[in-house]
């Protein structure tokens, strides 16, 4: 457990803005660090500030936004431990640092072991596998490899602790997906699509650019909401079909992950399938639609 704690801590350090003194850590982990600090920092900015902001509340919240009940629940964990919640308790680095601390003690007694399961299954695994999958896909510099390493570590931890019977509270608390199909109302689709835990899909700006390229549509600069709105307004059918296809690809991968991720993987798969079914019912195999 101590080695895992050290590794988690090392990965936490590297999830923050790079400094020159972080270089030995990256080297120790055999990560491909750019030669210049500026290039490394630029890769970090591109990955975590521009593509995949590393906050649990964005990926688990009803609104897909920072803060809110998800952050409150994470802060509640700190308070339950008698600790002062940090300013951004749901930031990936904060959570990993906490998990490292817990792992360090996890051999001590059952309470620490319980806490290890709580942090892992309630606050890390509900969002990190799909998040890290996108970091791996769209991240720059050392971060795709960093992501693969963290995914591998999380899987080892999940297997070591065993799949709990119940869905984590963050995911249980989400509203059920809307029944029926999408009627073409752009405003109605933006909210759910940009809330990953509701839609089952994560759409970083790089994916939206790929969507525009694949569908031959024009791309407007702006936040994700503006970009997606602009695409839908140009060709709703093409865009919804592309997203439905992406959701189905996610389903395939999640089917594999269910073996070690259990109900969490089923949640994300069901939501992705429901989204695909909602946006483009004709594209979804019947068996999958029923699941949704």
């Amino acid at each position, binding site marked *: 457990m*101590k*080695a*895992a*704690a*050290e*590794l988690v*801590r*090392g990965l*936490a*350090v590297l999830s*923050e*803005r790079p*400094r*020159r003194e972080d270089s*030995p*850590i990256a080297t*120790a*982990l*055999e990560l491909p660090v750019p030669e210049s*600090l*500026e290039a490394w*920092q*630029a890769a*970090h*900015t591109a990955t*975590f*500030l521009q593509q995949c*902001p590393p906050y649990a509340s964005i990926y688990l919240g009803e609104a897909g936004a920072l803060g809110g009940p998800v952050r409150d629940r994470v802060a509640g964990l700190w308070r339950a431990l008698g600790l*002062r919640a*940090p*300013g*951004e308790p749901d*930031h990936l*680095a*904060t959570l990993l*640092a*906490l998990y490292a601390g817990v792992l360090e003690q996890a051999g001590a007694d059952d309470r620490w072991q319980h806490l290890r399961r709580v942090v892992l299954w309630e606050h890390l695994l509900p969002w990190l596998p799909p998040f890290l999958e996108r970091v791996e896909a769209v991240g720059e510099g050392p971060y795709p490899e960093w992501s693969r*390493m963290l995914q*591998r*570590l999380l899987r*080892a931890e999940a*297997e*070591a602790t065993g799949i709990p019977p119940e869905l984590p509270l963050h995911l249980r608390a989400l509203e059920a997906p809307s029944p029926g199909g999408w009627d073409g109302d752009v405003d109605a689709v933006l909210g759910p699509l940009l809330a990953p835990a509701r839609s089952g899909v994560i759409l970083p700006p790089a994916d939206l650019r790929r969507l525009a390229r694949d569908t031959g549509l024009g791309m407007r*600069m*702006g936040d994700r909401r503006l970009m997606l709105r602009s695409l839908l307004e140009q060709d709703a059918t093409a865009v919804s079909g592309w997203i439905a296809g992406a959701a189905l690809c996610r389903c395939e991968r999640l089917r594999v992950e269910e073996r070690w991720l259990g109900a969490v993987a089923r949640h994300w798969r069901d939501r992705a399938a429901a989204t695909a079914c909602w946006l483009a019912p004709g594209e979804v195999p019947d068996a999958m639609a029923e699941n949704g």
Partner: protein
Amino acid sequence: MNSRSWIERLGGRISALRRETESRGETFYQGASRIHLAGFPPRERWDDWVAIDPSASRHGRDPQRHYALVPTTCFNCESACGLLAWVDKETLSVRKFEGNPEHPGSRGRNCAKGPATVTQLTDPDRILHPLKRVGERGSGRWRQVSWDEALDDLAGRIRRALDEGRRREIMYHVGRPGEDGFTERVLAAWGVDGHNSHTNICSSGGRAGYHYWMGYDRPSADFANARVILLVSSHLEAGHYFNPHAQRIMEARKAGAKVIVLDVRMSNSATHADHWVAPYPGSEAAIFLAIARHLVHTGRYNRSFVERWWNWREWLRSLEPDTEPDFERFEEHLKRTWAGFTFEFAARESGIDAAQIEELAETVAGAGSALSTHNWRSAAAGNLGGWQVSRTLFLLNALLGAVGTPGGVFPNGWNKFVPRPPKAPPHPDWWNELTYPQEYPLGMNEMSFLLPYFLREGRGRLDVYFTRVYNPVWTNPGGFTWIDALTDESLVGLHVALTPTWNETAYFADYVLPMGISSERHDLHSYETHDGQWIGFRQPVLRAARERAGETVADTREVNPGEVWEENEFWLDLTWRIDPDGERGIREFAESRERPGERIGVDEYYGEIFARSVPGLPGAAEGEGLSPLQYMRRYGAFEVARGVGPVHESAVDESELEDLAVTPDGRVYTAAAPVRGANAVPTPAPEPDAQGRRPVGVEVEGRILRGFPTPSGRLEFWSSTLAQWGWPEYALPTYIHSHIHPSRMAGDEMPLISTFRLPVHIHTRSANAKWLNEIAHTNPLWIHPRDAARLHIGGGQLVRVETAIGYFVARAWVTEGIRPGVLGCSHHMGRWHVQGGPGGGQIDRAVTLRESDGRRGLTPAQSSPESPADGDRARIWWTDVGVHQNLTFAVHPDPVSGQHCWHQAVRVRPAEAGDAHGDVWVDTTAADRVYREWLAMTRPARQVSPDGTRRPRWLLRPLKPTAEAYRLPPEETP
């Protein structure tokens, strides 16, 4: 390889790195620390940050705009929060200001005044060129002159004064400096003791209370870690360093801290408090003493801290000279001394229920050593004896041992870093009686607001008088006296106003010289915002942006609008011209070391400071491949230290201990030469012993510890200084009846509180920020409904407020947000310019100055503000710009601290027919009478000095003259 062996391998490597880091005494990783404020553009992108211009599509432009993000420091108040200027790389203009996330004090956050800076840059009415008056002073006519003409004229005049032995005729009068000591050194280079600050109308009272306790004259509360926060005034929304403090107070609240606010108004601070207490003004010290008594009588104070760090032995020796001091005996005396300060006594004085005061006492008692308290102006600046408010407030910290502790209060000198300049001139060898007159030997700072009286009494004259971003006509009490002095050329030969914008004082100048604001000037500063040390660098952002683009800028005027300059280059140039051939020994302080014979430039000046005088900065810069100056130009701030901790408990280094002498009370003196540390923060210098050894620390339990820079080396519960300099009755923290104590007022008088700020404004400095003016632009008279009903005053009605020397006409605001029996009127509003003269703005209206029957008056010539000449003219929807109440206030110098005691005893009644909003009338004869009454309360140095000097030499003082200059001159025989 099993499924976890790779974890063992990689984890082992991280473990080795961690051990290596920890073996150096460093923390490997204490948790996420670089994740906050991630919404800011990351600093590695500050050279070229791309943002979308939302209006571009309307104009068919490329929506992507490229910005150079350049840090600077806000100039609107003294907090010195970091700003990040967004410089459009295409137009090289500043598009907006946001917070600088790299600034350790403000941490990327700003109040409204920071972003509003951009409206001050583009103010169409700002002064862009040097101007010289035409015709009579105050006639309002000007002509544009070149900088060379102005500088040569000034330099020649100053040179003549120096050559003719009239150096006492040169004076520099400053508001909030926003800079650590640059101009003081310029004056010292000239050999002039002519520094005059606004401090005695601001914080002298607050400072005095702290100074006598701990040597340093400012508190530095570690708000973020406090369990209980006790604020006197609306500090949370508008106090000194309020933005850096407020964000830390809110952090503490989130962690469960209790906040107590004493304020007669339901201010924004009061609304955030767990305990809002609105005592009768001036009774605050009575409440604190009752809390102190409770802590002592219930044994809830930190006995070991008091025994260790208070100078209780000195007090006992003064009471019982023949008895060896004993701590239990001290405790008995303490209880006896404060026996009368019961909750019931405090309740009678303050009008607050005794049970509520007891509840406060219990809350304070629960703070332990995590009590953060703060008082700066407010009650300390409002009342006769107000300096005892901060003194009795700090008493609570001293009782609980909440000094230099997490969540406690630190002396400001520990949390401030002032780098040593390349070359420091010697101290003046003479004494300026106009700023430090003999009547006020303990006056904390210059008696600046009495200057026109002193000039008129023939105590001196001024040949060259600089007002620097300061507006005494409007800000100081008794503005008509200032107008009289400034228009009398026999008293003030030449008045030079250094200012970015027109103001009431500049109108009476001979030269008006345009100075830059926050993004147009260099300054270096450091303030006590938390338990740490940092420096902030204000810089002309367009200069920095051009230099990033590879250009060379030698003079800030090249990038500033019009001919707006910055002060540092101005002072260096003026110094050079005063002594063009170096014969007077002045020029050397403005001379380049790199290029002897040439004037030093700001790059060399600051480059040398950053390279040589800031520990850690060269290394940090090198780590990024930058020079120290480039580092500061890039990031705008540097954190010198974090978590300074209890300096008083640190052991004095052996190298400083030589031929020691230790007093019976443990004060340790050394013959070793002083150590010239990196930090040049102003620090009191207690007197040496009879053999000339300097005080170096105190002996505590066999160890020599650093202690505090007070005469005793400990916290001075009993001040030998006050006892020896004529005020033995105030030597202990005590309660002084204010001049507005009910026993001193007529039955129909009420106290008027004028000291509070409007949260988005800052005295005169923000008057040309149109965004701020739209938010706040008037100052109605706060009056409680009960008082309004009694006086037959309705909401919005015009009222006459009569002071001891005149009256002003204001609009009533009937509100339950003020304590019954007390009136309030913020001093931020009522700006004016003389009709037909320059000036004008969104909160400024034209007036006529009048004189009739020995009375002086100010009458609005317009009912609404003049609008600026820009596109927003039609958007000014307000007409009420408030009233200039300070004109009707007589001077009230506290006889001990010298602080002007702002609170007024007034009568209020409905306005008379013919009264107009903003009308002011003053009887200047009555103003003279009040001045003399307060002057008569003093105990001059000639009568009380125990050693023939003018002032205790250990007390802080700008430009501290030589020891010889401290000696009182021979008494003149009639």
